[in-house]
């Protein structure tokens, strides 16, 4: 494989045989086209617009100045004495270095410095309206997927018979599913309801659990809120229902909340599972076991390359916590720059600090995301329910039997065929819905809506034009 193939594979995970991964073909084709364009081959477009990643900086979002200034000063401490950086940046870098042994970010520390863990627990407390968060229940790792892997590792008994089962949503990004099966457990899919803007329905959880009978032993329920790729944001009531269900059925809750800062839908509000659980009171608040994951990769930081995230554990057996502690410390440490970013995310500049005004400009992006979410509903051949949050639009393609037939003749999934056409003719790289799982007979594409903020009006119109034209052409 070329390395570029892997580049795309890495975000959506890989199948048992990567050679069969349809997205791989798309990604390699995109790279070929980029190469051809560089060599001067003429097409309708001058460059390939890549909206297939959940990666803010790749999509053109600029890193937050305050974060990068502090990181630079921590990496190269002479900058702390430089007048080129604002005072609060220099003070912050000084403080961060003070928490590192030897005053160097080159020093590794296991499962997080206590000061950073403290910032995270304060952040959670503020977020959840004062509900306390215990620092000893928080572990830092090299990205949320790393934490999910560790918690799954404790939950999944690879030698158990029947095998351990984990309920996962469909559609769902693939990485966690790969972790689950890689540990020798079984994924039990539950379908989100597209008709109701991708809502999570307890009846469907019930059906999924029933379907697992005699097959595996479901011990955990994996929820992504706000959703990836669906953008669905659960209401407080929905979160409460899921908690009740988990309590009744004896399931451990694994909650991926990495898009918690990207909620912009009308009447949408992020309610953390931790908060809902706590406010439900006994018996739930003291019993339901919960792991909530967050990271610096999404939200307004978008620092996915730094690899840093945390997990907060609620209601775990203290004896089990000891082993979790060992697992996290065995990983040596998570990257220190990422840990500092986590500290800056959870303890940002305050009003009055020199860096505050710049830091506070993060709202503009969200407004744009909101407009995007309403955009495709009206284009013929496409539909997308209102998006509550997250980075993506998961757009339904209404393809005709004829175009579906044509794709099958080519040996491609219909939505992969669509993505291929969109790439060839419009120069836009998206991901096909088949990568995430979808109901039989439905077809989708996912793309990162952030990038549109940075596209020119002409570019946007061009994308619209091609998306529309394609559904018409493919549908005829």
């Amino acid at each position: 494989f070329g390395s570029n193939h892997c580049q795309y594979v890495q975000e959506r995970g890989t199948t048992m045989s990567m050679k069969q991964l349809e997205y791989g073909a798309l990604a390699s084709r995109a790279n070929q086209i980029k190469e051809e364009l560089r060599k001067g081959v003429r097409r309708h477009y001058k460059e390939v617009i890549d909206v297939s990643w959940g990666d803010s900086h790749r999509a053109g979002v600029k890193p937050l100045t305050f974060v990068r200034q502090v990181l630079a000063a921590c990496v190269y401490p002479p900058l702390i004495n430089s007048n080129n950086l604002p005072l609060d940046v220099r003070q912050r870098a000084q403080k961060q270095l003070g928490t590192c042994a030897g005053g160097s970010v080159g020093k590794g520390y296991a499962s997080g410095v206590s000061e950073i863990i403290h910032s995270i627990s304060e952040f959670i407390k503020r977020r959840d309206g004062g509900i306390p968060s215990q620092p000893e229940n928080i572990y830092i790792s090299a990205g949320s997927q790393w934490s999910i892997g560790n918690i799954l590792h404790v939950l999944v008994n690879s030698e158990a018979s029947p095998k351990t089962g984990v309920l996962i949503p469909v559609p769902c990004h693939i990485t966690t599913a790969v972790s689950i099966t890689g540990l020798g457990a079984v994924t039990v899919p539950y379908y989100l309801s597209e008709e109701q803007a991708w809502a999570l329905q307890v009846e469907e959880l019930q059906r999924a659990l029933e379907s697992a009978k005699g097959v595996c032993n479901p011990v955990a329920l994996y929820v992504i809120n706000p959703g990836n790729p669906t953008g669905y944001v659960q209401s407080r009531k929905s979160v409460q229902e899921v908690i009740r269900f988990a309590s009744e059925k004896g399931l451990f809750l694994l909650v991926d909340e990495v898009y918690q800062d990207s909620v912009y839908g009308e009447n949408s509000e992020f309610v953390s599972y931790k908060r809902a659980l706590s406010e439900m009171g006994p018996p739930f608040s003291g019993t339901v076991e919960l792991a909530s994951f967050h990271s610096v990769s999404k939200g307004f930081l978008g620092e996915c390359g730094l690899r840093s995230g945390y997990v907060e554990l609620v209601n775990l057996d203290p004896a089990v916590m000891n082993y979790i502690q060992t697992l996290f410390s065995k990983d040596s440490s998570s990257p220190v720059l990422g840990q500092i970013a986590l500290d800056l995310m959870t303890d940002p500049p305050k009003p009055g600090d020199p860096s505050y005004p710049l830091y506070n400009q993060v709202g503009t992006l969200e407004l744009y995301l909101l407009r995007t979410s309403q955009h495709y509903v009206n284009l013929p051949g496409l539909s997308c329910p209102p998006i509550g949050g997250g980075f993506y639009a998961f757009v339904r393609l209404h393809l005709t039997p004829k175009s579906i037939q044509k794709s099958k003749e080519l040996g491609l999934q219909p939505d992969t065929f669509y993505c291929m056409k969109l790439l060839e003719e419009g120069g836009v790289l998206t991901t096909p819905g088949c990568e995430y799982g979808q109901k039989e007979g439905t077809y989708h594409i996912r793309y990162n809506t952030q990038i549109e903020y940075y596209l020119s009006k002409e570019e946007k119109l061009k994308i619209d034009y091609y998306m529309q034209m394609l559904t018409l052409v493919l549908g005829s």
Partner: protein
Amino acid sequence: MSATRMQMLSSRSVRLLSRGRNEMLAGRSGAQRPGGDPRTRSLTCPPLSSSSSPGRALSSLSATRRGLPKEKMSENGIMSRAKVLTIDTMNPTVKKVEYAVRGPIVQRAVELERELSEGMKKPFAEVIRANIGDAHAMGQQPITFFRQVLALCSYPELLSDSTFPEDTKSRACRILQSCGGNSMGSYSASQGIDSVRQDVASYIVRRDGGVPCDPNNIYLTTGASDGIMTMLKLLVCGEGTTRTGVMIPIPQYPLYSAALAELGAVQINYFLNEEKCWSLDITELQRAVNEARQHCNPRALCIINPGNPTGQVQSRQCIEDVIRFAAKERLFLMADEVYQDNVYAEGCQFHSFKKVLFEMEPEYAETVELASFHSTSKCYMGECGFRGGYMEIINMDDEVKDQLTKLLSVRLCPPVPGQALMDLVVNPPQPGEPSYDTFIKERTATLSALAEKAKLTEQVLNTVQGISCNPVQGAMYSFPRITIPEKAIKEATEKGQQPDMFYCMKMLEETGICLVPGSGFGQKDGTYHFRMTILPPTDKLKILLNKVKEFHQRFIQQYS
């Protein structure tokens, strides 16, 4: 559900949706295959548990679901529930994981530091952490060039700052150009940034005197330990007597024993020869593998060169012998070479397994499977916090490589700043560039200080009666043997402690020096050791060694 999705989800869960229950059960038992018979390659596809672990007996499916909480009535009459995750229901292999380098001694050290800061009186003014090979925590200075480039990559607006040398700027631009959106905050490919892997390959070619290296065989990792863990995951399979066995040196770096416990693999110990400066004996490897074949399937041989904690540097001849042995016994070789620049003793030289392998006859060079690990954490860099590292994989089956990429993709990608640092390490400033002189000066200073401290440690420790220390030929630690009087052994046993744990704990309480007892690394029965880093600054190291000396004399006196 679409066909592609079916491949992505566990095949079993998909069958669950599309077929009847009986058919599905039949499908599961049909998937059974015995794991782990060595074939032409010691590592063949598919090795992952999701695809290769045998299905279980059908009868158990009708048995009570294990791991479900027992419902119980709470006092107020509402149904409450027991925990899902308890000591009894959790993954049993996780319980076996221990990690000595951060064990009870370190916990006590943290407590002591807190007590000192709260003003409690102790027989010492500070705790000295000589337990872990963390160079920067011990005051080693980072390399200016590395940090300047990384600062520029973090905040590219600094490119207009005239205080940064030109070559740091051009290097930063080159790195940023290979990052998505020109930002270190973007994901990279899960195998690592292309240009960094190319630079690593060129470095290996230079290091190995022209032996070729294919960038496609280079995988960037989150520190070397991530690479080691990933390779072990690929290797471990089978049940009972076909369960994978992995040979590790004793004494070993506890990452290995912890990883093997976590994966439920069989640990096969081979003892290094303390009398011959911790050298590796082929006859001992043979003994270990022969005994292990009775109860498991040995598939891999781990070598740490230069040694941790033992500090020995392998000769070229010894490496050749190990390669022949691995070929004969069909073992996958894992060469932990993170201390490759830390070689101090005269007459010792670092030889990479890759180089030696490629210079052997084709029957070896073209068949023996090898993974070699390196990182940014040791040597003159000591940048543990960036979690940079790479592995080079030789002669591995192509299908297994696909599985490897899949495993790596679960973590998305290695930290990009660590990748950038790895790039700088393998491609440092060249003569004539503005940063060259400072770079060489800093690197030489660090490495020569380490060489001096290696010698000093050996010399001082060997003046103490009851302590004998092999020459520290390489790496960052001494691993001296200590005599512990019978009376002390008895007292330790009564306390339920290993004698050297008892010794180190006492040393910590009395002197504030934090060491790791030899029992954490493994040692021959009846011998006792401790591991101490040679990293503290020379003047501090001298004081440290004297304190160890005094403590040992006191200890002997007290217990004889």
